[in-house]
């Protein structure tokens, strides 16, 4: 495959170009070693489908979401107002992001501070590309695999999006199954509300261990996620049970890339 050159907003602006979408990579997408692979997969898909997009690169910063969920409203708003200024400078109107937490913050919370955008989660965007025939999955790649989807709280309950990630998985033509606690009844991975950045309070087990049990009980070969924190929690949970050989944890974008052979 040819080398992909990443379109950075400042370069594009210097050339007088303004892309249709801003791809908001997010901190996990930029720094988390495992989730960097998801970012790479998603960018491959964007290029494959010929999407007009740009990203902020070194100008990107935290949306402030983890600070807000941890009670630090001051820091959240400083981040948010800074981001809104940056996005204004590039006339950004449409944002795609792989992180449901960034998605929720842009979509639901930035409007209160004057930032109004059309915000799309990558599961929704990939569904659109699949529906339009711009990403054609090879039905043989996953035909003998069973995939179970874990609903991220901020995509599912938080924003009512249960269908898009499942539509993307359906395009893979794999076998699918569901956990008993699914969709609006899904159990959290344990990382939301800034838990990702601290130790859990004392209890009798970790939330991700509880959820991992449920994943393993389905007998699925692959647990698909659509959130960087869910990925960390489930990957850790599966490793903790020493099941990483039997059950793989992939983001839906990675599954599409595998299916397309990119």
């Amino acid at each position: 495959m040819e080398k992909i050159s990443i379109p950075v907003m400042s370069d594009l602006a210097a050339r007088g170009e303004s892309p249709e979408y801003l791809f908001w990579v997010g901190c996990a997408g930029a720094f988390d070693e495992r989730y960097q692979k998801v970012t790479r997969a998603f960018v491959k898909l964007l290029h494959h489908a010929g999407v007009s997009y740009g990203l902020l690169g070194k100008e990107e910063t935290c949306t402030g979401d983890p600070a807000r969920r941890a009670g630090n409203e001051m820091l959240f708003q400083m981040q948010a107002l800074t981001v809104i200024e940056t996005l204004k400078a590039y006339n950004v109107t449409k944002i795609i992001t792989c992180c449901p937490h960034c998605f929720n913050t842009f979509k639901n919370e930035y409007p209160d501070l004057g930032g109004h955008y059309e915000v799309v989660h990558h599961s929704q965007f990939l569904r659109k590309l699949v529906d339009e025939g711009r990403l054609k999955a090879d039905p043989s790649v996953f035909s003998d695999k069973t995939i179970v989807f874990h609903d991220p709280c901020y995509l599912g309950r938080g924003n009512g999006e249960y269908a898009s990630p499942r539509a993307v998985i359906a395009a893979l033509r794999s076998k699918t199954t569901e956990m008993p606690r699914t969709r609006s009844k899904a159990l959290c991975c344990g990382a939301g509300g800034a838990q990702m950045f601290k130790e859990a309070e004392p209890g009798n087990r970790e939330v991700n261990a509880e959820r991992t049990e449920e994943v393993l009980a389905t007998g699925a070969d692959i647990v698909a996620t659509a959130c960087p924190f869910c990925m960390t929690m489930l990957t850790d949970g599966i490793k903790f049970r020493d099941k990483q050989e039997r059950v793989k944890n992939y983001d839906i974008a990675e599954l599409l890339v595998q299916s397309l052979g990119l």
Partner: protein
Amino acid sequence: MLKQLVFIIVLLLTISVFAFTIRRIAGFFRLTAPFPVSDWGRRIQIMLKVAIGQSRIFRFPVTGLLHALVFWGFLVITLGSIEMVIDGVSGLERSMAFTGWFYDFVMASGDIMAYVIMASILFFMVRRIFGAVKRFGGIEMQKKSKWDAVIALLIIFMLMVSLAGINITYVRLHPNDYEGVFPLSAIVGERLSATVYQLHAWHEIWWWMHILLIFAFANILPYSKHFHVFTSVPNVFLSRLEPLGYLPNMESVTKEVRMMMDPATAFAAAPEGEAAPVRFGVKDVEDVSWKNYLDSLACTECGRCTSVCPANITGKKLSPRKIFVDLRARMKEKGPGLLKDPNFDDGKSLVRDIITAEELWACTTCNACAQECPISINHPTLILDMRRYLVMEESAAPAALNTMFSNIENNGAPWQYPQDDRLKWAENL
């Protein structure tokens, strides 16, 4: 005449006691913070679907169906109760019978529902007393809560027994010319052998028992978890309309941040006459919004929230139900003092003394609790307001979160990576 007089005295007594209780509770609302309400059209839709249609409660299918039957039954039976009050005051019998087919419909459905409710309540009672339903337990559930539930169920059961008793004896007393339709009581009545004298006596007994139970129930409700009979429908009407993922913005902070970020005002003194906000976040009852307090009055302690809470399931101290049970109890404790003196301080506070930081930090804001609540209580928002107090007033975040804050401040990410490395993932793509 004597019956009318007695009835009117009892009715006035009931209304006075009820008014006294409601006035006391209404006074507590004066202590709370504002909560703006708009979009009435959408609210009516939500109320019809969630409250009248009982949509949320069906998420637990079996008990959900039984609850819905009791609720819908109460709606038609309440129309009959209104007639009974009119009858009692005016000395008439079946005063609403002139409404014709509507009367037949209300009486017939009320009669059937009385037996349906009896069966449902029996099931609930057996489950309460003998069943080991996990969500009925928990640190916030005292012995009192169990008896509170059982007594309310018992009253409802007797309300239905007496209603059936009224219907049966009424049909038997006027076999050829009774008003209304009573499908089940007519059948039961046929199998009953009793003299006219006995029927008259029992009709009076059931009638008075029914009406006195209604009056007693109305005055017990505000002191029990069954207050939801009155508060849950308005509470659903006042549901938060934004997606569950949304957290409300703190305007007071926005003002400060904007001033800090604007070079023209960043180093200026605070403008004269503008009082600083009293407090960031929620520390005690005087900081909650009136909707938070209404939530606490509407909470039925069903525990659906706690039963789906990932923190609670995995043995952490947090129980979303406890947050609202505590708020209600704390208002009862501190409210009277605050009403006398706005600076009243009993040396305690809701956050820390009653709800611990450990509970608040265990929340993953996953919104499973808010999703499940049949009467649209939003727990995570209040939990977050309490975290805001801990962080912004006490600077008391867990150490790891303070590290996360300084990472965001210094390098724009919750982890300690230099901003210049933000495109590292794209190397060799």
